[in-house]
């Protein structure tokens, strides 16, 4: 498509090499056979939800990003 860039040979080679390495290292996941469920207990999930819903997560994340622009979404 006109508004997309072509994958350079260098990038295509790097992607293929990474894919092969990831497969050999077991880093490529098979499609799941059962629904995703958190490994955390309901009690810990509740603490995490409270942390998220209170805005504390967003405030702490803003601190993290302010310290390192390379971790910013923009």
């Amino acid at each position, binding site marked *: 498509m006109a508004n997309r860039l072509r994958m350079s040979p260098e990038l295509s080679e790097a992607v293929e090499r990474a894919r092969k390495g990831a497969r050999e290292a077991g880093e490529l996941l098979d499609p799941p056979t059962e629904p995703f469920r958190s490994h955390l207990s309901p009690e810990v999930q509740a603490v995490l939800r409270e942390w998220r819903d209170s805005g*504390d997560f967003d405030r702490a994340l803003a601190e993290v990003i302010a310290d390192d622009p390379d971790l910013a979404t923009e």
Partner: protein
Amino acid sequence: MAIVVDDHLLLDLLTDDPDEWLRAETDHSAVYTTAAWYYRLANASHRGSGGGALSRKLALRPEGFQRERIDNLSNRIGFVGPRLLVPVMASLPTRRRPNVLAAEALAVALVTGSSLVVSTDGALLREGARDLDIDYRVLAS
């Protein structure tokens, strides 16, 4: 089918509280995240003023809960290591130079054949995904 999720959506999954689309998607798609997004989430869990730090909240719970941390991620969440990923990140031919977070997310999506699914729209990632023909979706977290 596979997706790469950001830190907010990862937290939604860890709390078994994803939105309807994400819940349905994870029934049949492998889920990956990036080291940068995982680091942001894990680091945020140790920060916060007053009583805001998650680590302090968990410290008030019985000992067993303290061992269940974000830092100990489920094997259902996939990662690709930097040895494989950095050469891809360094070769991305995007119009705008991505920062480390965006470069890693784009590289993971390319290597795993994933869609990028994020909670916050950002031009660097959106435009990089468009340049590389990667499916890009924004969900409200």
